[in-house]
């Protein structure tokens, strides 16, 4: 393989990883915008998405679209129950309690997954059984295109929802000013529930599409959440488009880092980016000071 084709290989691996980080970051952003909470269980939605998809598609041998649909439904339901049982009852909770409650949720989901699926990683067949594509000397699995395509579709859908539908705009209004939103008749608590549901759904999609490439096991969540959060912060927390772009940047950095520097340190790259951004410019590269004050999508 020539150097150039190797670079292309890394680039596509990076884009694939980046898609997942972008979707995780988008999930963070949606909940953050509606509630101001960083949902530390966001990575667990991805993990659950992967494992539930394995159950439907590989164990029950359901057709692809039906499996994916049911997976999204199940994980969304998990997100809704989580919000109802853990977030909703909190009234005037301290910041430490808010942080700990999503952490408790993540442990609970991880424990549940370990109980149901055990500690072994699970494989999922690729969505289509076509041969790898040769592109400028690089060998690309067909699943990569599924990941990229579905990610673009999901991001566009979320973007459309928040900018073109009444409910989406209502959630955005809650983010701007919850009191004012309530005054004009928006049910803020329902919007919070909706943000958890959507965020779980997006996580489920990410998990379902990446599992054929990376496998999935019960304890994958925290690292995915950290990298997704790195993307959300890099993109300027609260900015949907920013976090998606940043997700791809981190995926590409990680892939080139693993290929050119050392695979042992690949996870450290995203974390270093996270720390440096938090330390130097917490508003992110794409978020302006003004915008982060307004918390706009």
């Amino acid at each position, binding site marked *: 393989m020539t150097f150039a084709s190797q670079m292309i290989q890394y680039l596509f691996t990076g884009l694939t990883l980046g898609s997942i980080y972008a979707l995780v970051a988008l999930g963070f952003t949606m909940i953050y915008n509606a509630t101001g*909470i960083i949902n530390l269980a966001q990575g667990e939605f991805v993990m659950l998405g992967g494992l539930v998809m394995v159950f439907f598609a590989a164990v029950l041998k359901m057709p692809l679209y039906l499996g994916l649909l049911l997976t999204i439904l199940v994980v969304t339901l998990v997100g809704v129950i989580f919000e109802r049982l853990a977030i909703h009852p909190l009234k005037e909770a301290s910041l430490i309690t*808010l942080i700990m409650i999503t952490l408790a949720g993540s442990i609970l989901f991880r424990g549940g997954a370990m109980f149901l699926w055990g500690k072994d990683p699970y494989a999922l067949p690729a969505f289509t059984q076509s041969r790898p594509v040769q592109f400028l000397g690089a060998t690309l699995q067909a699943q990569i295109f599924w990941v990229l395509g579905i990610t673009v579709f999901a991001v566009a859908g979320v973007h459309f929802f928040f900018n073109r539908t009444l409910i989406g705009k209502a959630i955005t209004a809650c983010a701007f000013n919850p009191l004012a939103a309530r005054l004009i008749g928006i049910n803020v608590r329902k919007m919070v529930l909706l943000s958890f549901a959507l965020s779980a759904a997006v996580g489920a999609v990410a998990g379902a599409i990446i599992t054929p490439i990376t496998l999935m096991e019960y304890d994958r969540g925290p690292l995915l959440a950290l990298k997704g959060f790195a993307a959300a912060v890099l993109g300027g927390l609260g900015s949907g488009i920013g976090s998606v772009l940043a997700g791809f940047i981190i995926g590409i950095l990680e892939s080139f880092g693993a290929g050119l520097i050392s695979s042992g340190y690949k996870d450290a790259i995203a974390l270093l980016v996270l720390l440096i951004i*938090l330390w130097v410019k917490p508003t992110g590269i794409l978020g302006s000071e003004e915008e982060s004050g307004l918390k706009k999508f």
Partner: protein
Amino acid sequence: MLMKRKDLSIILIIAFVIGVFPWLTGKNEYFISLLVFMGINAMITLGLSLLMGYAGQISLGHAAFFGLGAYSSGILTVQYGLSPVAGFVFGILLSAAVAYLVGIPTLRLKGHYMAVATLGFGEIVFILFNELSFLTGGPSGLSGIPALAVGDLPLEGTAYLYLVWGLVLLLLLFSLNLINSRVGRALRAVHGSELAAGAMGVDASLYKIQVFVLSAVYASMGGSLYAHFISFISPSSFSLMFSILLLMMVVVGGTETIWGAILGAAVLTLLPEYLRGLEDFEVLAYGAILMAVLLFMPKGILEGFQRLWARAQGGS
């Protein structure tokens, strides 16, 4: 002494219980090692409690400082043949220096950002423990760490128990004095409102960094004691899960007073021993317990039981 009589009597009670414990159980090795681990955990949560309860800062990366202490002791004694005291002191200095350097930019962050930044820091240190295998032995760990000894007399069993808990009680005394001193009042002011504290002339960022460094030093001491006690360390003991467990101890016990941290460390050190029969349920049980405490006793079980006790007495 800047200390309340009640605090002092609790310390004396703990000292007495630890003192007679080995004799009551016929020096049972299992019980003694359980108490040693409890002491090590209590040492770390003591620092975390100061950081969370008094300075209002959250850290999801304290397993890193625990690990820095443990690996300092392990590497200096095993790889370089130095004395355990050198490892102990080096661990403290290293942890303090790292905490200071990481703390300056991190403590400027608030709430969630601080939590995630410390989480990221902890993961990076965890990766380093795995990757710097010429020093740390990599994922397979570092073995043959010598036991502590005074002269030719190795400190084992009961003696080690007394050493660990003696240190815990000393740090407890120190922490209680700190809380009841000018520094403690300043910290509570910072916790209440950083802005108001600043207006009163309290240098909030200075106090926060001092407590962060102090808590890292406590964790490092715990790490060194841990390494010499079990003689083998591997990165898995210093993962995110341990950071979360430490945080859980403080939250479950209660962040209102420092006693909550001690109680939390005691309860969550003993709990896994009883959960062991559940095997695959263990993580699930942790999550459920943490969730239940947060929802029903947000101020921790210490305060929760005190309230229940008061209600029971009032009702009868």
